[in-house]
């Protein structure tokens, strides 16, 4: 039953993605998209089982989702400043950039939290172990998304 629900979720997600990425939605497109999404869903379930990954707890998801677009915009701005600064000034890396460990708030799943953090330009999760993420960051600042995931101050 659990596998069927997971398959259905993957299938729906992949079908939605294919619908977003095409310009005109016709019956043929939906049929082809549905077929390919079914194959993709089978592969996704197999890959997830092989990796032993689990979604983890859902604590703090609403706050994280709210902080995500803010962090996305702020990080893009910081990235632009960084590139422009590299262009004119001395070429040295920004202060505080590099690997950092982030302890997630209790009940926050490492899988989705890591994916969300990696989707912003300012951070990339390279390792997750027992609720502690190893994140490669752009600079020393702590983005809103990270504060939301660690349960830090707003």
């Amino acid at each position: 039953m659990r596998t069927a629900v997971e398959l259905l979720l993957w299938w729906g997600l992949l079908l939605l993605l294919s619908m977003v990425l095409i310009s005109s939605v016709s019956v043929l497109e939906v049929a082809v998209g549905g077929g390919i999404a079914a194959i993709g869903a089978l592969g996704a379930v197999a890959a997830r089982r092989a990796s032993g990954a689990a979604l983890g707890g859902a604590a703090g998801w609403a706050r994280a989702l709210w902080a995500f677009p803010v962090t996305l915009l702020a990080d893009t701005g910081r990235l632009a400043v960084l590139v422009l600064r590299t262009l004119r000034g001395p070429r040295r890396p920004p202060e505080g950039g590099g690997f950092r460990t982030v302890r997630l708030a209790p009940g926050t799943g490492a899988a989705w939290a890591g994916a969300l953090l990696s989707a912003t330009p300012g951070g990339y999760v390279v390792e997750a172990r027992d609720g502690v993420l190893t994140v490669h960051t752009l600079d020393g600042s702590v983005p809103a998304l990270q504060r939301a995931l660690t349960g830090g101050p707003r």
Partner: protein
Amino acid sequence: MNAWLLAAAVLAVGGLGPCLPVGLRGSPEQRVAALDLAGTIASAVLLLLAQGFSRTSYTDLAVDLAVLAPAGTLVFTRLLAGREPR
């Protein structure tokens, strides 16, 4: 020439312009940062062009790039991870 196309031209020159020298001449970490920014700006330029030419089908390219460009950056970042001691 409408406002959308003008905005696309300004963003392409003003945004992608600085990314090019940094992406070509910087250190590996700076190049990845420039590549990341270039992907974001290129997606926005393609969206503006689609709007400027009134062709909704052109947005497909921008949406595809928006999905694929960050994934490419993540791959490069993963390869750079071995350069710095943890």
